[in-house]
């Protein structure tokens, strides 16, 4: 349990910096890609900002538990294990969620694809961290 919490916390901190840092840089250098976010579907009064920024830790702790439970199934070098872990998570969890999101909400395909790849990269990064610190 302690191992799960510690690896989750470490991955959460790294993911927080990479995810929101990456998002900040993307908004700065590719602003036109974010025009569609001026959509009433998205919360606009700042009341859920804390929840938004907690996402890095939520996904890290969830994946830390998932890794600890199934890590024996991922074989090979830590890079290969991390990549496979990220791919498995994306296929099992992300793809169906993105599918239903796109089918139900008035959002663009570009937007939903960017979320998918954002989640895939997050899962690969956490997979690499877990494979290194909790092999």
């Amino acid at each position: 349990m302690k191992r799960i919490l510690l690896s989750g916390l470490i991955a959460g901190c790294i993911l927080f910096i990479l995810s929101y840092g990456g998002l900040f840089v993307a908004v700065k250098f590719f602003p036109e890609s974010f025009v569609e976010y001026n959509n009433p579907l998205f919360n606009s009064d700042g009341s859920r900002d804390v929840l938004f920024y907690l996402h890095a830790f939520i996904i890290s702790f969830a994946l830390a538990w998932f890794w600890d439970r199934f890590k024996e199934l991922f074989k090979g070098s830590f890079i290969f294990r991390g990549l496979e872990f990220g791919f498995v998570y994306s296929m099992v969890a992300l793809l169906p969620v993105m599918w239903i999101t796109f089918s139900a909400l008035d959002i663009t395909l570009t937007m939903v694809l960017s979320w998918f790849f954002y989640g895939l990269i997050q899962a690969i990064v956490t997979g690499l961290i877990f494979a290194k610190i909790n092999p």
Partner: protein
Amino acid sequence: MKNRTLLFSIFSFLLLAFQNQTYKPNMKHWVIIKNCSLKVGGSTNVNKFNCVIANYANPDTITFYKNTEKGSLKLKGSIELNVQNFDCHHPVMTADLRKTLKAKVFPKLVIRFISLDKYPLFNDQSNAIKGIVAIELAGVTKRFEVNYRFVSNGTKSLILVGSRQVNFSDFNIIPPRKLGGMIKTNNELKVEFTLSMKVID
């Protein structure tokens, strides 16, 4: 003698009362005719937006009371615009602006004309005047000094263009912010209204 004095007093009172009742300040009426619009321009950290309510054509009347104190003209009249008619030329931006302006709760944007520095000169092709308006938006009414341009269209008709920078916060509206504040709308908005009017005496 007593009766005469009483009769004279009553007559004088009635005369004064009648004079007061029939006295009217020098009034002019302007009727809004066609091609009126309201433009709102703003920006976010990822784009700019220009929204418009076009083709406002309610036959509203603006009344001028000339020769008031300090040489300014008192105005009476207003225009009422439907916030749902805003078009930002981008469906997502349009929907977001309507939500931000609380269109469902406060469907009307009202501009009340309060005063004008001076009466526009019709022989002048274009002249700049300042005036006061009260803007009611999202349930909040606030007075602003507006810069007007009057473009004369002949002796009896003119186009009035009023412009002013306002803030979302003037109307207790929080500028929208998305993705934890990564995408932010700036507080400032440029408002410009164009009214085509005909003078009726």
